[in-house]
């Protein structure tokens, strides 16, 4: 890729296995991007393959990615507002781990998780909010302290900052330097990325620097905030990527059936995660018709 005269671009582009291996240590608190859209399955499958342990996973509304990581034994704690299989039902491996007592939880609400990330992003220890003052969520798995506004005397909840060690983000495209372009449903993805110490990004495409520079409005993360960027075309399947491929709703329904039994789920992980080396190997497991109907084959690198 051409650089300005006499100046070498510092490339952040590395294979995904290297990005996860170098930047995601055991015991890390990991924010997982993707609010239904652009869920970073390729990155999660990679940390599962590498046998990461004792992770704390966090985000507002979770996807079945959490369920898979829990089933694989990578997770000791989850911090969430919602945990399930969106539009389908429950998170079965999560429920089994809870019942077995092998999983710690911090259960908030979607707004409070967003505020926790936003506080970290702003570099303040908490943000006040008019929620979690009634009901049973405060006191169940979390303590919510109140704060009195020094100007008005209003009683509010003090929502504590949540600063993840690592954020895993999937996006449409980036340049080699690690300037990230993302569009479509964001949810709390950008909040979580900007709250985290270390950001690892997978993308559908690596594009020339001038493509990124031509549309700076699409940039959600500048290169200096990104530790590593890796190419993972199809990396959000079975979720979707706006303007690249559709959501595989059928896979979510199949997962609901499979994940009801621990043995069947173990076989699923053997096939779709441990049994492949990378995302290309994963996509090869699906028949051409499904790949085509989702539009997954169109932009493979």
């Amino acid at each position, binding site marked *: 890729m051409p650089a300005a005269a006499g100046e070498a671009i510092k490339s952040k582009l590395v294979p995904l296995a290297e990005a996860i291996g170098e930047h995601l240590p055991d015991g890390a608190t990991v924010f997982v991007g*993707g*609010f*239904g*859209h652009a869920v970073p399955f390729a990155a999660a499958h990679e940390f599962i393959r590498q046998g990461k342990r004792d992770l704390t996973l966090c985000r*507002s*509304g979770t996807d079945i990615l959490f369920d898979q990581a829990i089933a694989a034994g990578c997770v000791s704690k989850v911090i*969430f*507002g*919602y*945990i*399930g299989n*969106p*539009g*389908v039902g*429950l*998170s079965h491996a*999560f*429920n089994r781990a*809870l*019942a077995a007592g092998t999983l710690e939880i911090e*259960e*908030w*609400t*979607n*707004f*409070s998780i*967003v505020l926790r990330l*936003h506080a970290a992003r702003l570099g303040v220890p908490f943000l006040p*909010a*008019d*929620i*979690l*003052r*009634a*009901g*049973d*969520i405060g006191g*169940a*798995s979390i303590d919510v302290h109140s704060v009195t506004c020094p100007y008005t005397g209003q*009683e509010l909840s003090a929502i504590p900052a949540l600063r993840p060690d690592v954020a895993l983000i999937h996006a449409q495209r980036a340049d080699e330097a690690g300037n990230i372009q993302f*569009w*479509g*449903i*964001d*949810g*709390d*993805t*950008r*909040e979580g990325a900007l709250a985290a110490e270390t950001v690892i990004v997978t993308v559908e495409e690596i594009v020339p620097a001038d493509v990124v520079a031509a549309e700076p409005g699409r940039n959600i993360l500048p290169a200096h905030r990104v530790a590593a960027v890796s190419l993972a075309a199809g990396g959000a399947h079975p979720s*979707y990527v*706006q303007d690249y491929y*559709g*959501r595989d*709703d059928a896979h*979510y329904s199949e997962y609901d059936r499979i994940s009801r039994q621990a043995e069947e789920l173990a076989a699923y992980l053997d096939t779709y995660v441990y049994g492949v080396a990378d995302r290309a190997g994963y996509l090869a497991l699906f028949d051409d018709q499904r790949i085509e109907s989702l539009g997954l084959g169109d932009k493979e690198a």
Partner: protein
Amino acid sequence: MAEAVNEDLNLVVAASLSLKDGDTCFVGIGIPSLAAMLAKHSHAPGLVLIYESGAVDADPAIPPLSTGSPCIPDSALMIGDCLDVFGDLQAGRIDVGLLSAAQVDRFGNLNSTVIGDYRSPKLRLVGSGGAHDIASLAPKTIILMPHQPRRFVAFVDFVTSPGTTDWEGRPHPRRENTGPSELVTGRGRFSFAGGVLTLAETFAPFARADALEGFPFEVEADAGFREEVVLPAEHLALATKLSG
């Protein structure tokens, strides 16, 4: 009597009728989404559907599976983020929230967290998501519940989303002028004007006793109680179509 009636459609239609043209509406997934879609496609074309994923003024072509599903951004006039929409909600700029849950009690407390004890539940559910936030912050919250007696309990196993009061009748500490405004089932509409559930109307062909069948608590009728209100046929037809 009730065999030929599709109660799910009644519920969607009746809830949609509570949404007014020009309202801004924070919409949950499932029946709430269908009710909002129906209102927008019938009597309230100016209804603004807002989803917690950050999508504003959405008009999904099909009932979305999740608030991030493609049919939402594909039809939205703006894609913001969670902070935009929850921020607007907290700032009082959204008129009404639509919620469903696994359990509801006569104080309008909603449970979407656990059936049974929190530490050793009989059934672990998905948790609040944005439900607690909507119930805490929306000026009006409309609760949509299929008429299944197991959903109606003397007091919910877990208060995910606060209603009017706790078990002992103490008002929940909450912002003024928020809380449940009504509950709609496939058989009737209830109000919380007095802090506890009262029956406002039933939908034909359901009589008062049908609307309360299987409830584990007594429900008074409102002063202006209306029995066997006929829901508009055009709405029922459109609801069928939108349900896919």
